[in-house]
């Protein structure tokens, strides 16, 4: 045990004497979280809109007011001809043009049918889509308020978004980031620190010493369990204080699941380091083979349900996907262990699998 402690102490020296490691360990999580939280957001505020109002009556004016006071849109320009539409789009500021046909309120009164046209700038399809939806929402709200007095029959949907009532993007990014960063720190850092010993030749000395291989591996991994765990706490706390992401469920359960995920990523890091002897290759494998799938295939940014079937299969073998499901479930929905037992089991299974493979690989290498 004393030998083991000496080993761990040495490992901490390595970490604390290398400012790059420290930067990755503690700078990266904070910076990433703030960047993702503030920069990447699905909400669009103050989009510039141009209005071509051909009837200029009371109704169109009221609708325009509603649109502009919604907070989503700012009036860029009032247009006076169709020709100008192409022009304002080309200038690039305007994302959306709203066109009212002539005699809008007269038609609405007489036939009950009036036309508006919405033209979006689909060179940025996501934004265009979202803005069009906002605008349609505003229009249908207005319609409902008109109809309230006239037509007896109507269906009024009352929408409530559970668990994230304001539809904040950051609710999605905190769990995703946690998976990504814990994966990065755990897998990348351990695989790097083990391959470093191989490159230096110190690994041979350790293997010749009375330390058992399992002690060596545990000694290398233990500091990172500890540090990654601190990182998990940093992310949860920052998410909560800066972005108001709640932890509805049990904090203890959340930390336990994080620990499990850290162990999974660490065992993956060990596996990587048994495959290669060079730090560079370990880094390549960790970054390309782990980070990209974590970002793209875990449901972090892109919904799994919309992917082609083959890619969905890949998603199912991505451990971060299960972790993200788990954290969302605990943090946002406040679910207990019962609801995430399946995902927890899968993470534990991955951990055992990676450890099993590492041990086998290790033995083959020794022979």
């Amino acid at each position, binding site marked *: 045990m*004393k*030998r083991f402690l*000496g*080993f761990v102490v*040495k490992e901490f*020296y*390595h970490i604390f*004497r*290398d400012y790059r490691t420290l930067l990755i360990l503690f700078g990266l999580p904070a910076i990433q979280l703030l960047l993702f939280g503030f920069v990447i957001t699905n909400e669009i505020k103050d989009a510039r809109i141009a209005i071509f109002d051909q009837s200029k009556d009371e109704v169109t004016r009221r609708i325009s007011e509603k649109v502009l006071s919604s907070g989503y849109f700012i009036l860029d320009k009032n247009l006076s001809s169709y020709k100008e539409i192409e022009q304002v789009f080309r200038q690039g500021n305007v994302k959306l043009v709203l066109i009212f046909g002539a005699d809008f309120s007269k038609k609405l009164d007489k036939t009950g049918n009036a036309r508006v046209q919405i033209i979006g700038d689909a060179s940025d399809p996501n934004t265009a889509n979202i803005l069009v939806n906002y605008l349609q929402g505003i229009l249908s709200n207005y319609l409902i308020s008109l109809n309230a007095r006239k037509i007896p029959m109507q269906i009024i949907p009352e929408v409530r978004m559970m668990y994230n009532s304001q539809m904040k993007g950051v609710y999605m990014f905190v769990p995703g980031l946690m998976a990504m960063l814990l994966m990065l720190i755990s897998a990348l850092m351990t695989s790097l620190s083990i391959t470093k010993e191989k490159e*230096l*030749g*110190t690994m*041979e*000395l*350790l*293997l*010749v*010493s*009375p*330390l058992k291989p399992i002690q060596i591996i545990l000694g290398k991994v233990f500091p990172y369990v500890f540090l990654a765990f601190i990182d998990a706490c940093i992310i949860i706390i920052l998410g909560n204080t800066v972005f108001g992401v709640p932890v509805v469920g049990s904090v203890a359960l959340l930390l336990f699941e994080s620990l499990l995920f850290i162990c999974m990523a660490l065992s993956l890091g060990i596996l990587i380091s048994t495959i290669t002897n060079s730090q560079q290759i370990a880094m390549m494998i960790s970054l390309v083979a782990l980070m990209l799938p974590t970002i793209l295939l875990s449901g972090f940014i892109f919904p799994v349900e919309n992917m082609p079937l083959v890619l969905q299969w890949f998603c199912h073998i991505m451990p971060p996907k299960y972790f993200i499901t788990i954290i969302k479930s605990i943090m946002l929905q406040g679910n207990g262990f019962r609801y995430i037992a399946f995902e927890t089991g899968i993470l534990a299974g991955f951990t055992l699998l990676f450890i099993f493979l590492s041990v086998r690989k290790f033995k083959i290498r*020794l*022979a």
Partner: protein
Amino acid sequence: MSYRPEAENIIIVKDLVKKFGSFTANDHLNFEVKKGEIFGFLGANGAGKTTAIRILCGLSYPTSGKLNVGGFDIYNEREKIKRNIGYMSQKFSLYDDLTVFENIRFYAGIYGLRKKVIDKRAADLMHKLDMKEARDKLIRDIPLGWKQKLAFSVAIIHDPKIVFLDEPTGGVDPVTRRQFWDMIFEASRKGITVFVTTHYMDEAEYCDRVSIMVDGKIAALDTPDNLKKHYGAGSMNEVFLKLARVKVE
């Protein structure tokens, strides 16, 4: 100490075979090392020296053969062997980002030495190597020659029965190499058996006995004087060239 035929065998190797696929790195090696001698393990690059030393240290398993190191069986008593051997590789493996003292403390620590003993031995070492000012310097900031001496001292800090040195003098200048051999002699005087691989033939003269490997086999094994006599050569270098030539023909 030196080679005494009557001394006990501290390493016994019988029919050691190591194959990598169809390539045979060690082809039925047979030899004994006597307690306290400096045993030189010579051969050209790729002759199978490193493979054999790695097997003796427990870094690799033999394909077949009976091996006994320090009185322990290599298959069943690995843990006991590990406690009784020291190892230094050609890389002088020390941690660059730890200080001289921290390296000593770490390596002594993994052999289970107590803190008091560690402090004492570290102080003695600093004194002996004349490195007192360097005690708290990082390894990356000290010269290669110091690193090499320190790596050797660390390899024997737990007073092993045997120390294995795998090309310990690669890349250092002749003067430093000579000083390094003085350290080896000193360890040998203290009763530590030294098993050393090298491809510097002048160093072979320093060994009590020398085995020369050619193509995975031991081509010759005797004291340097006997070898020179037997092959009618003036130096170990000539002996080696003669053996290598036999192989070519």
